[in-house]
């Protein structure tokens, strides 16, 4: 880790007093005043949104937040650890099914289904990651894809628990302090609060020394190994953390839709999450959230107008993004800023 930091430091621009070296501030953990202001403004706008939006728009915004959390958790793998997973929706779906089952058979009282969902996401990710993280490159892509497919088949065939291909329906509404969250706006605020909590977790992981180690592994794994780190353990830990947050997002999905189907953990959902990360820009956490909002907008709002061919548009967007925007929307900002700061060597390899 220290090597990585020192390298960054050497390239850092001399913005301090002449002759003096500026104090080390990692580019990824910076509390810029504009950044803090922008985040606060975004949270304020999001919190006030139900007052201005029609109920349908609020529902769409709720879904955007859920998928944004999924995309942000995937970014911890793709952008920060350099592990491009093609099957992240599996852990999202495991969380959704767990939350639905707990709400229906144990208690729908507020934190219980979500905590169970996050725990189940973490456990599933630990099992899947145990196999997948051993591999690298193309093998990792294939393994995550195959494991997710197997989890989806399990959801389809384990009828008594998951409801088979019809899905799990009739999930009771979440109880918050004894009151059922059936109002669109109340549900939205509940999802927003959990979304922000999940985002804070991801941001803390990313900004911690652990996150710096993950970036080190992404940028130069042999060097990290030479420094005495064990990349396997760190990658597995990142995989489990991302699985837990994805499980949390899945729990929110179960609370909102009150229906979970095998499609929620299928390949298309994984592909959409990955598309959100790639559109938004890898390694930034906030970029993928914007990407997810865009993807949900295209799929749910423009999709019906296109005769149900939303995936066609998304496929074309995929192709366009790969050629035109290799670093995503966040990359645009980064290029602008690169006059002042060294560019992150980010991106999945």
């Amino acid at each position, binding site marked *: 880790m220290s090597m990585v930091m020192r390298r960054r430091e050497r390239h850092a621009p001399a913005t301090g007093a002449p002759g003096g070296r500026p104090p080390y501030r990692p580019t990824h953990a910076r509390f810029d005043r504009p950044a803090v202001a922008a985040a606060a403004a975004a949270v304020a706008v999001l919190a006030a949104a139900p007052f201005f939006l029609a109920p349908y728009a609020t529902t769409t915004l709720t879904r955007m937040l859920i998928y944004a959390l999924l995309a942000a958790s995937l970014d911890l793998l*793709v952008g920060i650890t350099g592990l*491009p997973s*093609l099957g992240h929706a599996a852990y999202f779906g495991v969380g959704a099914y767990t939350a639905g089952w707990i709400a229906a058979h144990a208690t729908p009282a507020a934190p219980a289904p979500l905590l169970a969902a996050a725990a189940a996401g973490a456990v599933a990710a630990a099992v899947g990651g145990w*196999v997948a993280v*051993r*591999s*690298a*490159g*193309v*093998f990792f*892509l*294939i*393994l995550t*894809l*195959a*494991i997710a*497919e*197997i989890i989806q*088949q*399990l959801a389809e*065939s*384990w009828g008594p628990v998951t409801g088979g291909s019809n899905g799990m329906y009739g999930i009771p509404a979440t109880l918050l302090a004894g009151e059922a969250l059936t109002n669109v706006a109340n549900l939205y605020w509940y999802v927003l609060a959990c979304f922000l909590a999940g985002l804070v977790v991801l941001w803390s992981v990313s900004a911690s020394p652990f996150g710096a180690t993950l970036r080190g592994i992404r940028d130069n794994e042999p060097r990290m190994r030479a420094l005495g780190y064990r990349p396997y353990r760190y990658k597995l830990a990142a995989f489990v953390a991302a699985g837990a947050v994805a499980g949390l997002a899945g729990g929110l999905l179960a609370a909102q839709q009150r229906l979970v189907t095998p499609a929620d953990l299928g*390949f*298309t959902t994984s*592909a959409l999450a*990955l*598309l959100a990360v*790639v559109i938004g820009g890898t390694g930034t956490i906030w970029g993928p959230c914007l990407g997810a909002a865009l993807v949900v907008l295209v799929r749910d709002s423009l999709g019906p107008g296109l005769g149900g*061919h939303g*995936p*066609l548009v*998304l*496929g*074309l*967007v*995929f*192709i366009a*993004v*790969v*050629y035109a925007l*290799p670093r995503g929307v966040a990359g645009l900002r980064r290029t602008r800023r690169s006059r002042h700061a060294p560019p992150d060597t980010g*991106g*999945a*390899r």
Partner: protein
Amino acid sequence: VVDWLDIGVIAVLNGLAIGLLLFVVAVGLSLVFGMMDVLNLAHGALFLTGAYVAWAFAGDRPTWTSWLAALAVAAAAGAFAGGGLSLATEPLARRSHLDQALLTLGVALVAAELLSAAFGDDVRGVNPPPGLDGTVGVMGNAYPSYRLTLIGLGAVVALAMHLVIERTPLGALVRATVADRDMVAAAGIDARLVRAGVFVTGSVLATTAGVLGSPVFNARPGLDGTILILALVVVVIGGLGSVRGVLVAALLIGQIESTGRALLSDLASFLLFGALAIVLAVRPRGLFAGAIGGRT
């Protein structure tokens, strides 16, 4: 005991048919993957295209003419698609695996949507050509003669691939490119031609396999994903760019899919995962990696 044996014989034969069909699909994927380092996620869509072509031309009342026409059209479509994919991935050659996977993923999504728009969401059944639509007795069991033909055909393709790859100058070039692409380019061979050739061959094999497999699987939405996953598992278990590895892995997966499903229907998915996990724990690069090249 006799019942179990009967189920066993049928399941093993089915597994052989599925396995050899998987071999034809996966060998193209494996070559593209091993030689070009490109993970082609549109490979399943190619198979599904072939299956729909079979339905459009042959349908449920095929003649030999319509059946052969379906094969020819599917092969032509595969060649066209392979050339297109080769051109499309060319600019991404020096980019990450993820970018190439994303591109082919986008192509796969678009292709699946177009196919569903053109052919609807119903299951489209295809019958075998006349003369092969009956059954023959195998150890006292009635078994579809088309599947036996499929086994024979698959064995011929496997043998042909083996001979071409291992015994001809062209095969030597392919193996050399898997082992060291840059050295082949340095020896004065146009890498773009090799690349396009491999892509076209792999895609033609995939669409043809789609036609051949359509009486077994039927053309339906979602089949592209199923076949892609099976082919990817075969490639991972077999090892990069190794024809022998692909054959062994395809036969193994075929048996798991068929015999495993017949004996323990719900657990077959876990068997697939278990086989993958065990192979990767023992041989992280696949069973036959290192036979020709061992690059990631």
